[in-house]
């Protein structure tokens, strides 16, 4: 605990020393933990993640925010092969770490799609808000490319946060919105390859 100050600490870690394990691609997960306020506790909690093939992305750690039980909530973002994630959660629990929520965390995944077509004429802001509604997603950012001006064919890359495990349904919803608005939707290839 003492080693960590406040707010956000980013831990970067070289991914995948075991190539075979990441063959099926990796997914991002968020795990919420509650730690007792003792020195070394955070480090102890993180060990099982790396030991089970997980790759730490970031740690959100708010010291000021104490749970009713007097514990400190910590949110850990990590990536791991989907088939290793359960092992990570089990290992955390085996190590005596209090895991509040794992995997099923809201917006645990991100996907990007590229939209192509008459994006301006088809009302881009309406398109984005319908994606948020119909795909149950949050638009995290948007990049637009209109090399021939906004009257011609334009492309947009939209990065979306969605519920873990909900990617297929979300993409299905975006696909059907695309066909209603006559937009080409270039989806990520999920499964097998990293999304």
């Amino acid at each position: 605990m003492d080693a960590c100050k406040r707010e956000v600490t980013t831990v970067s870690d070289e991914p995948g020393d075991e190539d075979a394990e990441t063959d099926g691609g990796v997914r991002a997960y968020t795990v919420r933990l509650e730690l007792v306020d003792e020195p070394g506790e955070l480090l102890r909690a993180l060990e099982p993640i790396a030991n089970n093939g997980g790759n730490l992305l970031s740690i959100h750690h708010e010291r000021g925010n104490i749970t009713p039980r007097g514990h400190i909530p910590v949110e850990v973002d990590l990536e791991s092969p989907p088939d290793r994630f359960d092992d990570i959660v089990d290992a955390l629990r085996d190590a005596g770490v209090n895991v509040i929520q794992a995997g099923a965390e809201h917006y645990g995944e991100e996907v990007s799609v590229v939209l192509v077509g008459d994006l301006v004429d088809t009302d881009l802001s309406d398109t984005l808000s319908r994606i948020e509604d119909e795909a149950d997603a949050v638009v995290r950012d948007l990049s637009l490319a209109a090399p021939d001006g906004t009257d011609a064919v334009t492309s947009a890359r939209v990065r979306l946060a969605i519920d873990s495990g909900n990617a297929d349904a979300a993409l299905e919803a975006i696909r059907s919105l695309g066909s209603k608005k006559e937009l080409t939707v270039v989806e990520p290839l999920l499964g097998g390859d990293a999304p």
Partner: protein
Amino acid sequence: MKLAILGAGDVGRSVADLAGDYGHDVVALADSTTAAVDPDGIDVDGALERKVGGQSVGSNDPEAVFETEYDVLVEATPTTLGDAEPGFSHVERALEDDRHAVLANKGPVAERYEELRALEADSAGSVRFEATVGGAIPILSTIEDETPQAVTAVRGVLNGTANFILTRMAAEGLDYEHVLAEAQDLGVAEADPTFDVDGTDAALKFVILANVLADGGFALEDATVEGIQSIPGSALDLAAEDGRTIRLIGEATREGVRVGPRLVPENGPLAVTGTRNIVQIETRNAGSLHSSGRGAGGPETATAVLSDVGRLPPL
């Protein structure tokens, strides 16, 4: 084995040319109008020379092919959709005469798979078709070795022309029409590239894969297919900013077939460049297998035909 080869295009000619190296005899080679037939083995070099020189391949009627003694019919006539003729009838005749059939022609396997298997069940001969999917790359034999039941999905790039166009668009920041014209100049794209760029050719291959995984049930009309014609250079630029690129990716599972432009990691295994093909075979017990290589070309495709011939049991 004694081979009777129907079709004297790039594939048929290469099969004839390489058959001797694999220990087989060519007893017949036919194009759409004539045939060279000799039960003791035709003069392959002479026939190929005539064909390439614009003359007739032989002095027999193509019909004579079926009347000669052969073990394996190699079907290398043009791929057609729907009834898949004349390829289907050629294979039908071979099987009814208790001969083997090896196809490079995708039509019969994609469009009439169950009929083909039914004919095979009533015949002493077998049907093989490695060359129909991914040219030189051993894909169907890998699935056969893993057993189709243990394969959950096959994904990848199985059209070199579309892959070449997307690769060039991404590298040069050029638009589709521009790169297509370049590909035609280089001979990578045909004068009429429709089936390559609209996804039909890739879809036929993934339909064949789905048929193998599910033991039939699919034809081209069951596939969801989208091409690359509407992908502008700007879409590839946006993908690249995010470490990705766009490829024409097919997916075959027991549930269905889908082909369309998809975002894949720029440095990931499926983002092969140029005319190269790749498949990822997802297995239940052995993780994912990747095979890549040349997905087309006469000699490349002929090696797939001849390795099929090598796997056939004696009649």
